[in-house]
């Protein structure tokens, strides 16, 4: 027996049983297609105030339910309960995170907002990149569905974020996918890797969107909670920006795209609120949505044609909470009222009840507001693309969202109470007591041996570069199309993905996503800032000027005060960091309850920084190619191995993450951007996980060109040993290769700005090796084999 209040179409007898279970009085039974079906109307709700409702099963707390009754002045109808329950879920309402997220708006200066055309709160933020062009981008999570049903969960994650971008009026031009899995050798990891990677490729490739970057991380903390985040970038002219609101009394409301089916019902409220422990409930598999990329591709083209022809007044994609979300958000952002006839919704499954139709998360659907004069033009475009549509109702000025079922009122609410006035919690939080102990347990105090001889160091570099997190991700990224649309100037494995926006001028953008869960576990405030710093550094390393931030905050349960403290600290760190770097948060997403069996994931704030290029032809790749170019290390190396990839390889996690100096990050960024703009450098790569050892290996492998490296002066200047020089993860560092003719200019630039720089070697096209003078020589073939062999070994 279903736990839902208005479960499916049934025979009369079954319907009566259902009523009995919920104490209904079957006084409103409709005949549809020869079968019987109960309708809980507003009138019925008024007449039967004491009917018990399954608010708890739908994810509402008792006080939340009581608040709904207070707002309505009566018990909600089944349909209203469905709407409130999904819209007030953590996923849709941000009820636990709101009080903290406010800082992203508060810690913003006027100067930071000067390029911001649309900020937090809309489907996605919009940034002015000049010449009349605007870019919208956003990152979102689809973690829980992807664990249950990896292919469809990941696929619809791409679909959802792409629809957010379309609804801003933009053409989607690129996607990126930061992924985090459990241990690489755990039996369940292959199921998730195969399904999730194929799902992202299967959907994104079919939409014709180049996949230009992301991350693949393995850590056992993500075993029961893989993180599948999806970022999309869209491009538009300034005048094409569209917002989600329903204005203009008498304008028509239309639902178009795929038909509404039973998939994803309750997904938003159920999936994102509970763990997957075996608690005796039925499997939740059907709650995951199923994607149809072809329908979405057609939807993209048909929406762009709608925008071009100016036939829609407002538009909203249907994602989590489906029609509940779209109607209540459109109405409350516009003139405040809307009247909808729900039987007009085209159904894939005719047995769906009103509540299910309102909650359905069927993919590839959009809702638009169209003036009566434009109805014919709208229909012509739908017909051209063979897209189905149905007119559901119109915009009113009543301040009420009225939804009828065959003329009978089943929803009568103030849409703001559904969309914007949900519960807000200032949940208790406190610093975990265990943290002091963890921070005191440094890598240097551990029993792990430090490689010191040439042979030991060579083996260490090979081990690092073959390790799950540092190995080549080609096996994943080669399953994504990076060429389609013909504007990809950089993609994996370079520091950031770079897309040309204007084919005439070369104007374009760079995007990178980064996070380090271990750093954030050791210090949430600083860890979040380190993620921001790395993303900022990556974008600047390619030569782009950082402009904006989108974040996807993946954490455990907010009901655990220690997790809540991690969240609060990370948000505070991120907001402070953005203020110091002078780039605003334009939007993002929060994913809570990423925990299984009471154990939460590492706090994982994934940060996506977007930067701007005057001309993408200036982009700097992450590998050197020209013989004889000088190799410089920018920045200072300290003994900072706590939380590092090397410590991780030795099973150690303790101490404090590397020190952070955002002023130094900003300065390094400026130097890298200038060097790119003035043609001083031909290659640049930031130092992050795996330190200098990983950076040099990546740079040599990028184009298969070796180098001769000497680190004696670095060790002497910075007072570190060779092992530390290679594996420390000190921040604000990068390696660049400089043409001989530019060396003086480059050095003068760094000296003038007081930024540490030191020549550590020379590019050598003859010697097919990374040659560390007097220490060891690492043949590129051996390095490449180690680097590229890992993922195929586990997954091919």
């Amino acid at each position, binding site marked *: 027996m279903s736990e839902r209040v208005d479960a499916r179409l049934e025979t009369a007898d079954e319907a009566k049983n259902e009523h009995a279970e919920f104490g209904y009085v079957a006084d409103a039974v409709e005949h549809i297609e020869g079968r019987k079906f109960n309708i809980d109307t507003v009138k019925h709700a008024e007449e039967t105030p004491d009917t018990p409702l399954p608010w708890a099963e739908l994810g509402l707390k008792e006080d939340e339910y009581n608040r709904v009754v207070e707002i309505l002045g009566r018990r909600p109808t089944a349909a209203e309960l469905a709407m409130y329950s999904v819209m007030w879920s953590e996923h849709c309402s941000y009820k636990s995170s709101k009080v903290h997220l406010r800082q992203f708006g508060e810690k913003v200066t006027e100067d930071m907002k000067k390029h911001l055309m649309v900020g937090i709160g809309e489907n996605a933020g919009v940034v002015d990149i000049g010449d009349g062009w605007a870019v919208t981008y956003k990152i979102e999570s689809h973690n829980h569905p992807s664990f249950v049903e990896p292919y469809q969960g990941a696929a619809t994650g791409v679909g959802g974020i792409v629809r957010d971008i379309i609804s801003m009026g933009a053409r989607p031009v690129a996607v990126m996918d930061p992924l985090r899995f459990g241990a690489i050798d755990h039996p369940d990891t292959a199921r998730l890797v195969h399904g999730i990677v*194929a799902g992202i*490729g*299967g959907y994104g*490739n*079919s*939409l*014709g969107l180049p996949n230009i970057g992301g991350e693949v991380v393995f850590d056992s903390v993500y075993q029961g909670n893989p993180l599948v985040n999806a970022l999309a970038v869209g491009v538009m002219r300034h005048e094409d920006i569209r917002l989600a609101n329903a204005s203009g009394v008498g304008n028509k409301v239309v639902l178009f795209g795929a038909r509404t089916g039973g998939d994803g019902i309750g997904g938003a409220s159920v999936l994102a609120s509970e763990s997957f422990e075996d608690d005796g409930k039925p499997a939740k598999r059907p709650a995951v949505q199923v994607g*149809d*990329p*072809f*329908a979405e*591709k*057609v939807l993209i*083209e048909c929406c762009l044609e709608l925008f071009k022809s100016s036939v829609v007044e407002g538009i909203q994609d249907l994602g989590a909470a489906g029609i509940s979300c779209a109607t209540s958000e459109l109405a409350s952002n516009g003139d405040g009222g809307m009247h909808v006839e729900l039987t007009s919704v085209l159904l894939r499954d005719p047995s769906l009840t009103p509540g299910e139709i309102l909650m359905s998360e069927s993919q590839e659907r959009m809702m638009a507001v169209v003036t009566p004069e434009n109805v014919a033009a709208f229909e012509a475009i739908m017909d*051209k*693309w*063979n897209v189905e549509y149905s007119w559901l109702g119109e915009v009113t000025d009543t301040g009420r969202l009225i939804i009828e079922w065959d003329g009978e009122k089943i929803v009568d609410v103030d849409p703001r109470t559904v969309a914007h006035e949900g519960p807000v919690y200032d949940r208790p939080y406190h610093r975990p007591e265990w943290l002091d102990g963890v921070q005191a347990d440094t890598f240097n105090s551990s029993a792990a041996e430090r490689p010191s001889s040439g042979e030991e160091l060579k083996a260490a570099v090979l081990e690092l570069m073959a390790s799950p997190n540092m190995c080549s991700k080609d096996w994943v*990224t*080669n*399953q*994504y*199309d*990076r*060429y*389609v*649309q*013909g*504007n*990809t*100037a950089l993609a994996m494995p370079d520091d950031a993905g770079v897309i*040309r926006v204007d*084919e005439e001028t070369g104007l374009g953008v760079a995007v990178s996503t980064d996070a380090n869960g271990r750093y954030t576990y050791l210090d949430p405030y600083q860890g979040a800032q380190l993620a921001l710093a790395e993303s900022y550094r990556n974008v600047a390393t390619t030569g782009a000027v950082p402009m904006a931030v989108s974040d996807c905050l993946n954490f455990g349960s907010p009901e655990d005060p220690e997790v809540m403290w991690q969240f609060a600290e990370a948000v505070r760190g991120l907001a402070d960091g953005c203020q110091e770097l002078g780039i605003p948060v334009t939007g993002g997403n929060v994913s809570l309850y990423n925990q299984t069996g009471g154990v939460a994931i590492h706090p994982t704030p994934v940060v996506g920084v977007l930067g701007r290029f005057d001309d*993408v*032809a200036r*982009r700097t*790749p992450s590998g050197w190619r020209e013989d004889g170019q000088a190799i410089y290390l920018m920045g200072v190396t300290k003994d900072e191995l706590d939380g590092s990839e090397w410590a991780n390889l030795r099973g150690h996690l303790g101490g404090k993450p590397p020190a952070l100096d955002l002023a130094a990050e900003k300065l390094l960024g400026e130097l890298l951007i200038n060097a790119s703009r003035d043609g001083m450098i031909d290659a640049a790569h930031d130092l992050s996980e795996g330190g200098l050892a990983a950076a040099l290996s990546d740079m040599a492998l990028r*184009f298969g060109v070796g180098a001769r490296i000497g680190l004696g002066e670095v060790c002497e200047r910075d007072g570190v040993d060779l092992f530390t020089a290679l594996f420390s993860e000190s921040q604000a560092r990068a390696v660049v290769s400089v043409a001989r003719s530019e060396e003086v200019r480059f050095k003068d630039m760094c000296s003038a700005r007081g930024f540490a720089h030191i020549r550590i070697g020379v590019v050598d096209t003859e010697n097919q090796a990374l040659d560390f003078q007097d220490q060891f020589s690492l043949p590129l073939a051996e390095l490449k084999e180690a680097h590229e062999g890992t993922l195929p070994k586990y997954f*091919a």
Partner: protein
Amino acid sequence: MTETPLIGDFSPMPDSGLSGARIGVITFPGTLDDRDASRAVRIAGGTAVSLWHGDHDLKGVDAVVIPGGFSYGDYLRAGAISRFAPLMEQVIDASKGGLPVLGICNGFQVLTEAHLLPGSMIKNNHLHFLCRDQRLRVENSDTAWTSEYAAGSEIVVPLKNQDGQYVADEKTLDELEGEGRVVFRYVDVNPNGSRRDIAGISNAAGNVVGLMPHPEHAVEAGFGPDSSAFGDVELGGGTDGLGIFTSVLKKIVAGAK
């Protein structure tokens, strides 16, 4: 026949005298690389003309490109539905009269479904979507689409597909080989299990060519592969695919004189 140096900047050549040649690029609802194919035509110096699958008019174009994508979602079989599109009837008729037709990736699949080319495409033997810079050998330089290359020369162009394994019965394969209708062959790596390393074929007349990899993604320096079969190139500087488009444009212009 001169060999075009396929290295360096092939930005639009306004004085090339090819702009009078009009190449139609067909868009189905799920076509993805149509704008890329149009860009390739423009960069090669020709004029690109958008054609809509539901129309009945080829707009008098001199040649047709059926670009890559998932024409109708391809849940049934790649290209299986699109061959019935109204415009495809025009293409089939015109091809019999000698109209040059190039099917790239999904377009190749459409051409086999339309029986303009023999054989069929099935899922890659490794079952994954694969995107890589692929080396090909131009086996036949006598077709409408390959005359700018020397026979036996090699090119590097991106490959990206899920259903790229070319299959046909032995008799058909022998015929294709015997008649010189294997136009492109995979070199170094067979990326999908295609029979006899076949990457592209032509009809008997040589005006209809199907090719699995994507030459339209190797036409503009900075946005192509990092390598070329013709020597070292800058980052993203591979433009080896451009010759496909200049071949047909020159043939059209020469035929018009």
